[in-house]
């Protein structure tokens, strides 16, 4: 069941998510699926990006939940402080 879920999430990442974030030089890797929770890691332009949370919650999580309703939550395991080429850099406004 979990392997099947992982496979479906991976397919979404390959066919829809990574092609989208590639536009900003980013990519997403599936780390694991546990108890219907999907653990992801972001890289490239997404790692450390000021908009990474928007991408994850309003983009990736929404898409995964729409396509795979049994997914309860998508969680980010990325060390954003180690990002060396974020697409957007935050500042104090």
């Amino acid at each position, binding site marked *: 069941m979990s392997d099947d879920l992982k496979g479906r999430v991976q397919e979404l990442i390959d066919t829809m998510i990574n092609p989208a974030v590639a536009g*900003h030089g980013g990519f997403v890797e599936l780390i694991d699926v546990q108890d219907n929770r999907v653990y992801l890691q972001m890289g490239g332009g997404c790692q450390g990006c000021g908009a990474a*949370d928007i*991408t994850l919650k309003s983009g990736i999580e929404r898409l995964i939940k729409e396509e795979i309703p049994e997914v309860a939550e998508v969680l980010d395991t990325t060390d954003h402080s180690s990002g060396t080429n974020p697409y*957007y850099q935050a*500042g104090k*406004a």
Partner: protein
Amino acid sequence: MQRLLLLLPTTTYRTHDFLDAARTLGVEVVCASDEPSTFEAHAPDNLLTLDFADPDAAAAKVAALADRRPLSAVVGVDDLTAVAAAAIAERLGLRASGRAAVAAARDKYQMRQCLAAAGVPIPRFRRIALKDDPFLAARGVAFPCVLKPLALSASRGVIRANNVDQFIAAFRRIVALLARDDVEASGDAAQFLLAEEYLPGIEVALEGLLIGGTFHALALFDKPDPLEGPFFEETIYVTPSRLPAATQAAIERVSADACAALGLGEGPVHAELRVNNDGPWVLEVAARSIGGLCSRTLRFGTGMTLEEIILRHALGWPIASLARERRPAGVMMIPIPRAGRLAAVRGTEAAGAVAGVEEVAITAHVGQDVVPLPEGWQYLGFIFARAETPAAVEAALRDAHARLSFEIA
């Protein structure tokens, strides 16, 4: 489920904490940013691009969305989005301060005019056109003075001048700053600067929430590092304040008066004041919450974050308590010591091991070009601490900072 619109610039530090708060509250979030999301085509009802510098266009675009999928609240998370958020709220009839009041608070000259007219104590000020001759302009001000752009934040472009030569140098530096590609200034903000009297004294920041026109003080921060110029780099904030109770009450009173003078009535406010023997003087009142990651110092009631309070207020939900936790807390915004490319960060673990330090968040990345004040607008990171006394919080922050080293090539 209620839908909440968050205005989140791609460059804000505030996204994570506001999205966390929205998730805690269980509301559906619509994210609007100044640049398109890579997923906008997949989720057009939840991701949109707005020109925050054009509040009318932003309000029209959001109104079209709200016709299809109604919105319950709108929150702008920083200075860049405050006026657009107010314009959207006004158009949709949502809870927020009026657009004119928020716009006045966003323009340092308009703000000072409003405050002066209402008798709120502020430094003497004068607006000067950038096309004016700086030597002639300097003849009309008293020294020492402070020059600042009309609409930038985080002390960016704020420079003290003690004489005519320094005035001219500061004037030219601000003109050059406003011409930079990474500065968004339009209208008066692109054509004028402000010169105001330098006031000696200590500086504090007051975080507040306006509910139905009534000002509620949430936290008063001391800034223990002297801010005497030539630049005004913010570093340590510690709350609760160590000032006498009567002084704190006076700070809250003039801040409330300032909000009333501007016509602000709903939502978060962040005020900066100088305090000296003549009492508190208002330097700024912004219709937004505290910037950077600094809100992480604050917890209310049984653990509510500042962002949760702001969202609850915008949604019209009850707020159990506006009382800050009793434990003293503080943050250090890690300043950029010099311009260059960040090559390495060392000592993060040692800094995090200091008693009382809760988090060391390095937000600059290796390889990033870093720019100090007055041209810069970012920090290397933030250190957070909690301890038994404000003095212990301050000591922990200084100790942790001393253990960090930044290699800038």
